[in-house]
């Protein structure tokens, strides 16, 4: 019984991690940016969806839509306001740009976190679930929302896969992640690719955020742990590898779930972090990393 409980619970949370981490990996793979405001963008999406319900009295669908839109908008804002100016700056040396962007996104994330806490307090927020009720799977009473979460995550990942592998624009993105210069030689505007990638990331972050809000809820304190989670998953999977991130998401998700059930919920984040340290020693490029 416990086995099935862990299996199902772990699957739902891993799928959510997978969605978020995919975006994080994509951004790093294509534009070389480790976006440390990742958690803040997700929380912003959740809080927007919650506020839509609480203050505008929007229904679950409208609220979710607004949440995704805010996540999307905030991500693009991050790109245009924070990341791009630093990338294009002539005053910073090339070698130092990554550190600058890393720090800038970290600070930007903190700013968003504090703004959310200021406007809406740091109390937890949940989003009205679109799907309610429970079903029984192998005798385990499972909220239908968990199944919905897993299904939506995989649908979105599937759409992303189709986009990247079957469409011209998507293939350009894939190419850009392998060899940016080569892509420019083909006459494709790199800047447009970056915008496209950030836009995709924005959608992923928005959807992942809203789903998390419906499933567990977040508070402004979740910002740090969410970013850390995405970061460790992406490093574990291999920086730049999206499929690596997918696999790593399940490894981390199940590690956390096993710990929460078999040891204590208070320690759930520890094993993944220990694993990360171990991976750094033994196989720094991660599971499927290229860089």
């Amino acid at each position, binding site marked *: 019984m416990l086995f099935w409980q862990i299996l199902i619970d772990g699957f739902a949370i891993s799928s959510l991690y997978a969605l978020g981490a995919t975006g994080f990996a994509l951004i790093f793979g294509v534009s070389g940016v480790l976006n440390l405001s990742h958690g803040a963008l997700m929380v912003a999406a959740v809080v927007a969806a919650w506020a839509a319900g*609480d203050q505008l009295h929007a229904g679950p669908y409208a609220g979710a839509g607004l949440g995704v839109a805010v996540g999307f908008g905030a991500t693009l804002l991050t790109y245009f306001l924070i990341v791009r100016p630093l990338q294009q700056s002539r005053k910073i040396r090339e070698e130092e740009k990554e550190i600058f962007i890393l720090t800038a996104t970290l600070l930007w994330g903190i700013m968003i976190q504090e703004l959310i806490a*200021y406007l809406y307090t*740091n109390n*937890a927020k*949940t989003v009205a679930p679109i799907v309610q009720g429970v079903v029984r799977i192998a005798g385990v009473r499972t909220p239908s929302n968990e199944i919905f979460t897993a299904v939506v995550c995989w649908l979105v990942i599937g759409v992303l896969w189709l986009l990247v592998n079957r469409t011209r624009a998507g293939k350009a993105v894939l190419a850009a992640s392998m060899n940016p210069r080569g892509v420019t030689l083909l006459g494709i505007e790199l800047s447009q690719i970056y915008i496209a990638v950030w836009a995709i990331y924005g959608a992923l972050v928005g959807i992942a955020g809203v789903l998390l809000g419906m499933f*567990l809820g*977040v508070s402004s304190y*979740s910002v740090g742990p969410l970013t850390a989670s995405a970061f460790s998953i992406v490093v574990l999977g291999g920086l730049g590898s999206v499929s690596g991130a997918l696999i790593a998401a399940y490894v981390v998700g199940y590690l956390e779930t096993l710990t929460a059930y078999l040891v*204590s*919920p208070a320690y759930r984040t520890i094993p993944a972090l220990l694993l990360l340290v171990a991976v750094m020693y033994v196989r720094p490029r991660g599971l499927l990393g290229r860089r």
Partner: protein
Amino acid sequence: MTDPNKRRHGLRLVLAIAIAGLFAASAWAQDGVTDKTIRIGMFGPLTGPVSIYGYPINDGAIAAYKAVNDAGGINGRKIEIVTYDNHSSAAESVRAFQRAASEDHVNAVIASYISEVVLALEPWTGRLKTVMVTPGAASDVITQNIAKDYDNLKYTFHGYLTSTSLSDLVCAAAKDLLVNQLHMKTAVVMSEDAAWTTPLDAEYVKCLPQIGLQVLDHIRVSPDTTDFTPIFNKIEGEKPDVMITGISHVGVQPTAQWKQQEVPIPMFGISSQATNSSFWNDTNGAVEGVLYQAVSGPDVAVTPKTLPFVNAFKAKYGNFPSYCGYTAYDEVYYLADAFKRAGSTDPDKLVDALEKTDYVGTIGRVQFKGKDSPNPHALKVGPDTITGLMLQWQDGKQTNLWPANVANGKLKFPKFIKIGSTN
């Protein structure tokens, strides 16, 4: 109460009225001294994120002191409230207290709902010989300290219920509602791991068996928990009839997840966030059926003073006060009453007068435990003094179920709850 109150912040409400100069600590003439005022300092977080709890302290006190002044003040002296922003920090509170006593010469202080802050200020009430009455905070240690060092700490009065009292009141309500009405037999105690729940849980474990509920397990949850599924899973596996709660820092997530997972066991006890009128929206209605202790409820006339206060508060501020609004309001009144009876602002005489307080306020009849009790200057609880209420969220409304004489509804649970031993 403690931790959750850290989340509560205040809106800036500057009520300060200019106070005339200084006055010596020695006795002053009661009549004919009209230019002087009685200064009451109020500490609270006045800046920072807006929250549901903070400003009611100020608002409650404002409403009270104005009324007292309009009715002639205290022996001809008007009350002035001076506010200090303590950013919910104990260190800043101490500084503010020193300033209040030494520079602003306040005669008494109404301070904090955070136990850590109150405990930090407590020794200073003795050093600065300034009376402090707390509108919130639940730690038993506050009054236990007074027992250990009465002469120095007698200036502190705990104007809210201690954790131990809260447990006793929950047990009293559980006896009527859960044991007598629903014939429940077993319980699991689930509380967050925080300072205020240590004495709470200790008392739960004692008083629950005394009313007929066997405690099957006692689970302490980290306040940082975001996924409560394993915890509910564990509790459900033990098949209790009820979960007796002690949560404050957490609230939204366990409640929302309890509903989503359709955990068939009701929640009963302390769930401070559930006392907020906004909690229904905060949880998107998941709080339906949750039973929680409070000192006040909508449309519940705990005393004849309750509803007039609530209505006036709502008319002026647009929302219902939270628990510390009630207590701060009462405190201004009984402080004023104590000043009158003392006939002086001398702190020792004020302490004597306060100890004899017998005041019907908005949450019940305020009397303090005496010098010889293990918790001197704690509020007395019981059918003749303060009982608190047991409320349940039903269809978007906070309904009172206990005590019976002020109940305005009946127990009602969501469909997924199983009452009885069919868990």
